[in-house]
């Protein structure tokens, strides 16, 4: 089917709306899961089982007074959360989210429009996504530096260190599958593994999978690598001075990134989606959900690492392992 | 002049192995108390005679068990305060005291200050071995102030002892209560002392001694003070407050010139009203006894005061145009000093009818005797004297301290007393068997002093004219009387055993006629006594007497011949071995007399300070400018004991003080008490700041409150005295200016626990004759009063009180205390 600009636009709107909603819903899920793991009930009072908590939070975030610190660089302070949110969503534009479909013809105006699974199926999809996520570094970094707060500065410094370092691991770890597939497009990855569970790249590249997962946690600023805003150490790091919807945008960005990483992991290593039918889409939803849940689970179970351990892990363990993995993959391919 | 403890009259005793000094002839318990050694004792009061009711002061002296309150110390005596046997006795006694004693300590007004509780704990009574059915005993009110709960009473008899030995009223006594008989088996099983104590306790209760339900006493409340348990309480204080909630403010009783040590006990009024009020007055009852005004006239504070600037400015204006300031004795030394300063700087007259006569008398006395002040004080009299003479004082009304001393000497020092006063009194003769009361004519006070000279003076020292004058009263007669005579008769008797004759002497009594010369002392007859009986009585009185004291009262200051009387007093002092004490009339009369230069009369625009005047400063709350009452201000007062005593503010005062006026008028230091060190040192005061004054008693009872005024003594020749001038005698209806026992001034009258009315007081017969209400007509006016019968008065003289300044009684009496009046029934 022909990809028209109107289809892409509809897809973009769907991504924005749905992912934002899912990000919001993610906060509810996170609270609930953490609560259950600690034998608590979690949010219970707003709506049935606390389901409307998200709405309450939204209302709160939107209505909260917008404060810009006196000595902050106001422009950068205001733009920083937008960068985070924007990069996260831009990254999602190159990732297949939901199956492609055609809008039924009985719907006026838009009837018959083909909506692709990927808003923009770039041939360098993987590279683009990784690049956008790397660009997301500017959000926390600028936020931390602009807010005239020492905790923010420390948070910003940690952001730079952590994101830049783990970007290396992410790139190197995913390089081996790319070598195997021979393409940077997510569609090709999907096609490569279309043969069923046995064809999943995770079996061929377990080390790359683990490395990508670890690096993904670091990239998305999740426990055990949530050093950027670890409240016991740096209050709230780069987000110290933020409140209201600006802070909310960081939050949406983070959840969007979590979804992105989950999608990449699912598509690259766990077989992706089955283009043939609805069941495949259920599968990938399940896979994404599993990765999302894993992030919450890990948060409930593990303590976070020290900054020095973080760097040590990155440069002395993960990076060498990734390089070795590439070399071995290359050798195997050559042979 | 308290007794100086020299090495001579101190002996040494050993208590529990430690050597102490004690006064010869003192009880062991008193010696121990003076030396801060603890011997348990419930019933004994330091300044009263031993009661021997509680028996827990049992000690071992030189190996023998004696009661410490009853055994006198001897040189080298060795006292052991507790042995096993003594402890057994004491514990048994405390167990007995606890039998049937209610355990509602929670509601008892003693609230932990209970000696029964203390000794029960001290002797670790934690179980009970004795029992007896209880008797129902009803709570009663003995008078308008006394509340008695016999259920709590342990019949230690401290109240009866103090009432008899100290106060003199002997208004209460032990009575039968009809308790159950003790089980006879206890007699064997119990320690001896505990049994006999219990036997008595079980039968007794305290009751008014006149057989009625009412005490009819002076309502001094000393029985309340000494009660070791909660049996006796002030009616007004019952269940009002716990002792621990009350803050004690050391102060001086404001009304009489005793200057008794008191504590105002204050606490917030209620939950909603947090301003502090005085709940009661307490005292160090082992060292000082209060009268009714000191104990019950405490809520006379000026509550309405506020800083009224307009009134203050008006006061300044008034002072600027004032010619006279009229005030009374209800004033501190500091304030008196301020008024004196006003006189010096602004030339106002100071008029004080209460003090003026006293001041004049003191000046005469000083000129005649060379002593700047009298030579003894009530405290010293109680400690030392065994013969007291009271002249010119209505002892029951004027000065409680003198009454107590007079009585205490009779009871404790085996003393004797002479009481000279025109108004007959039924109470004084009950003080002791050797008390002679002379109800003389008004104006015969000089004769009383001549009689004293006759009786006590060293005749060699007396001037010839005085001797002659005294002798002129004596008549010598020859009388034939029958007398028993014992003769020894010698006889020869045959001894039957030996057969020899022996001389044996036998005593035979015969009646013999004998001629003797009898000297009748006409002075005694003139003074209303019986000369024929007096000599024998006097001889009995003089037995074993060593220390003589004389008390002089207010009558003498207002006497027409006051100067001559002062000289006679000086002569008595010079020729007899006699100490003299004078009662300052009311409050701080002595301080005022020493500090202020008083004028004879008022004139022109007058400022009255608690008195009538064109502009009134008043601590009573009804004047043009409010002043603090004596329980609202710091300051010092001078008392009958010639001491300067510091008193403190018990209740908040919000208005202006005299010192504030002084600041504007002539300049003054910051605080009223800054004047304390500025009091005139040439009049006996010392330059000691208020905050440096001590305020305590020693264990042996010596008074360390404030300081004793410096007195000087200049050698002078014997004064020239005049004969008694019979023209001063008053005839007809006589009114005597005299307050009821607990009333002294407007402030006592304001206090809610003082009930004595402003009325004419007369003997029962006189009151009946007068009816309910009379108009008392003086030369210069009249006053209409209700008539009240006082059964302790005898004779025809009626008492007119002066405690209400507004009634102008001082002006009616003029410069005298007795006046011939016409009593008209109304």
């Amino acid at each position, binding site marked *: 089917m022909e990809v028209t600009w109107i289809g892409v636009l509809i897809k973009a709107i769907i991504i924005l709306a749905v992912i934002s909603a899912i990000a919001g819903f993610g906060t509810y899920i996170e609270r609930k*899961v953490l609560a*259950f*793991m*600690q*034998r*608590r*009930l979690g949010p*219970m009072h707003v709506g049935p089982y606390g389901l409307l908590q998200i709405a309450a939070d939204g209302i709160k975030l939107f209505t909260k007074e917008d404060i810009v610190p006196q000595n902050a660089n106001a422009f950068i302070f205001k733009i920083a959360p937008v960068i985070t949110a924007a990069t996260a969503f831009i990254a999602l534009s190159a990732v297949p989210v939901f199956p492609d479909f055609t809008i039924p013809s009985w719907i006026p105006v838009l009837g018959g429009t083909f909506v692709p699974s990927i808003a923009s199926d770039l041939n360098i999809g993987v590279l683009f996504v990784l690049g956008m996520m790397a660009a997301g570094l500017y959000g926390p970094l600028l936020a931390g530096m602009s807010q005239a707060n020492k905790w923010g500065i420390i948070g910003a410094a940690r952001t730079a260190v952590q994101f830049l370092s783990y970007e290396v691991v992410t790139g190197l770890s995913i390089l081996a599958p790319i070598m195997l597939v021979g393409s940077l497009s997510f569609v090709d990855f999907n096609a490569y593994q279309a043969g069923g569970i046995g064809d999943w790249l995770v079996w061929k590249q377990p080390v790359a999978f683990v490395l990508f997962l670890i690096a993904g946690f670091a990239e998305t600023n999740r426990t055990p690598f949530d050093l950027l805003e670890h409240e016991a150490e740096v209050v709230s790091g780069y987000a110290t001075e933020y409140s209201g919807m600006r802070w909310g945008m960081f939050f949406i960005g983070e959840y969007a990134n979590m979804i992105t990483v989950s999608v990449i992991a699912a598509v690259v290593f766990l077989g992706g989606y089955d283009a043939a039918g609805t069941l495949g889409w259920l599968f990938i939803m399940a896979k994404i959900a599993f990765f999302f849940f894993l992030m919450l*689970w*890990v948060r*409930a*179970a*593990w303590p976070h690492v020290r900054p020095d351990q973080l760097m040590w892990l990155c440069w002395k*363990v993960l990076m060498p392992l990734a390089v070795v993995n590439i070399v071995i993959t290359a050798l195997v391919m050559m042979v | 002049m308290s007794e100086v403890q020299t090495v001579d009259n101190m002996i040494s005793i050993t208590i529990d192995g430690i050597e102490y000094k004690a006064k010869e002839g003192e009880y062991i318990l008193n010696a121990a108390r003076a030396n801060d050694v603890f011997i348990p004792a419930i019933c004994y009061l330091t300044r009263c005679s031993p009661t021997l009711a509680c028996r827990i002061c049992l000690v071992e002296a030189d190996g023998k068990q004696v009661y410490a309150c009853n055994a006198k110390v001897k040189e080298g005596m060795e006292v052991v305060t507790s042995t096993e046997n003594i402890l057994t006795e004491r514990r048994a006694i405390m167990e007995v005291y606890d039998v049937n004693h209610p355990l*509602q*300590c*929670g*509601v008892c007004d003693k*609230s932990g200050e209970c000696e029964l509780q203390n000794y029960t704990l001290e002797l670790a009574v*934690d*179980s*009970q*071995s*004795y*029992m*007896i*059915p209880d008797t129902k005993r009803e*709570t009663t009110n003995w008078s308008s102030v006394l509340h008695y709960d016999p259920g709590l009473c342990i019949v230690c008899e401290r109240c009866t002892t103090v009432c008899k030995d100290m106060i003199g009223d002997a208004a209460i006594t032990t009575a039968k209560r009809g308790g159950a008989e003790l089980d006879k088996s206890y007699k064997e099983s119990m320690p001896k002392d505990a049994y006999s104590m219990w036997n008595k306790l079980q039968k007794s209760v305290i009751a008014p001694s006149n057989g009625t339900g009412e005490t009819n006493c002076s309502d001094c409340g000393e029985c309340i003070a000494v009660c070791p348990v909660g049996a006796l309480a002030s009616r007004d204080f*019952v*269940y*009002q*407050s*716990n002792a*621990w*909630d009350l803050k004690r403010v050391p102060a001086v009783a404001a009304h009489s010139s005793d200057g008794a040590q008191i504590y105002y006990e204050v606490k917030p009024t*209620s*939950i*909603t009203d947090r301003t502090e009020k005085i709940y009661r007055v307490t005292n160090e009852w082992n060292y000082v006894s209060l009268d009714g005004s000191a104990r019950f006239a405490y809520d006379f504070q000026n509550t309405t005061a506020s800083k009224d600037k307009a009134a203050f400015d008006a006061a300044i204006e008034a002072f600027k145009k004032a010619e006279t300031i009229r005030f009374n004795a209800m004033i501190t030394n500091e304030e008196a000093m301020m008024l004196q300063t006003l006189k010096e700087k602004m030339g106002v007259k100071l008029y004080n009818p209460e003090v003026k006569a006293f001041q004049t008398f003191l000046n005469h006395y000083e000129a005649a005797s060379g002593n700047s002040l009298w030579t003894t004080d009530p405290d010293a009299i109680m400690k030392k004297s065994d013969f007291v003479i009271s002249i010119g004082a209505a002892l029951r009304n004027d000065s409680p301290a003198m009454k107590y001393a007079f009585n205490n000497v009779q009871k404790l020092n085996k003393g004797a007393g002479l009481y000279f006063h025109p108004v007959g009194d039924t109470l004084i003769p009950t003080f002791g068997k050797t008390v002679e009361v002379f109800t003389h004519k008004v104006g015969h006070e000089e004769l009383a002093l001549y009689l004293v000279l006759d009786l006590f003076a060293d005749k060699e020292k007396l001037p010839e004219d005085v001797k002659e004058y005294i002798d002129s009263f004596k008549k010598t007669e020859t009388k034939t009387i029958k007398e028993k005579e014992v003769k020894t008769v010698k006889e020869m008797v045959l001894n039957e055993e030996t057969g020899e004759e022996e001389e044996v002497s036998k005593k035979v009594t015969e009646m013999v006629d004998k001629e003797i010369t009898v000297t009748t002392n006409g002075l005694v007859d003139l003074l209303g006594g019986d000369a024929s009986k007096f000599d024998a009585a006097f001889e009995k009185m003089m037995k074993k007497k060593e220390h003589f004291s004389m008390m002089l009262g207010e009558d003498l200051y207002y006497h027409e011949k006051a100067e001559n009387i002062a000289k006679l007093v000086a002569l008595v002092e010079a020729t007899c071995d006699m100490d003299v004490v004078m009662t300052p009339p009311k409050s701080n009369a002595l301080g005022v007399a020493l500090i202020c230069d008083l004028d004879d009369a008022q004139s022109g625009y007058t400022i009255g300070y608690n008195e009538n005047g064109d502009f009134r400063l008043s601590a009573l709350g009804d004047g043009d400018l409010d002043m603090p009452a004596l329980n609202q201000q710091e300051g010092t007062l001078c008392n009958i004991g010639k001491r300067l005593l510091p008193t403190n503010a018990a209740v908040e005062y919000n208005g202006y003080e005299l010192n504030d006026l002084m600041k504007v008028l002539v300049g003054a230091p910051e605080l009223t008490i800054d004047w304390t060190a500025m009091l005139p040192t040439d009049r006996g005061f010392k330059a000691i700041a208020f905050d440096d004054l001590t305020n305590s008693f020693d264990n042996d009872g010596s008074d360390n409150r404030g300081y004793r005024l410096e007195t000087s003594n200049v050698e002078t020749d014997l004064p020239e005295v005049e004969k008694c001038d019979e023209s001063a005698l008053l005839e007809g209806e006589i009114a005597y200016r005299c307050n009821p026992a607990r009333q002294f001034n407007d402030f006592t009258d304001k206090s809610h626990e003082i009930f004595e009315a402003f009325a004419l007081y007369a003997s029962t017969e006189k009151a009946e004759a007068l009816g309910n209400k009379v108009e008392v007509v003086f030369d210069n006016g009249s006053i209409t009063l209700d008539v009240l019968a006082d059964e302790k008065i005898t004779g025809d003289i009626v008492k007119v009180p002066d405690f209400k300044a507004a009634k102008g009684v001082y002006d009616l009496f003029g410069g005298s205390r007795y006046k011939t009046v016409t009593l008209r029934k109304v």
Partner: protein
Amino acid sequence: MGLEQFKNRNVGTQNYTMVDAGHSPQGAMCQFKQVVKRTFKGELFVGLWVTMRSMIKALFANDMHTVKYPLEKLPISPRYRAIHDMLRLLESGHYRCIGCGLCEKICISNCIAMDTRYDENQRKEVSEYTINFGRCIFCGYCAEVCPELAIVHGPRYENASQQRAGFSLFEDMLTPIDKLNLQQEYDGFGAVSPNADENIKQTPLAY
């Protein structure tokens, strides 16, 4: 005396009992070994399992610890010290307080005040009684000192208020006379000890 003991700021280190925490790896090789060991030992998965197990228990074995407070309340101990109650005598219905003032005296935050008077029946009557709950620290001394078991701590602990001080009057704390039959004897602070009978010595009363 030297200053050594004062310079040692690690107060009490001498008396610490060291737990067996193993040894820190010495040298790069040892560290590497430790990493490898820990990586493959699966310690991390133990942690994951523990949390998962808790979640499963909470969801399916009804092992949830949350108490939905305003709707559900935990039972409180009889020794809990909440807002005071004034008890009545069970037989006569008269209040037990005798006005002894011990609670007022012992109160360390000085929040109890009472006025008493001599009443018509010649008894001590508590004419007014307040506790300032803005100041009360609920130490329980008043209940402990009360000789009549009259003032006790009740179970009413929800006393948040918008005002700094809340005064309670005697009547507020007194058991309502119509609820006398519901009055519970207090077990907590100041109550008679279970072995009180053994500590009492008998007074001979044979008549």
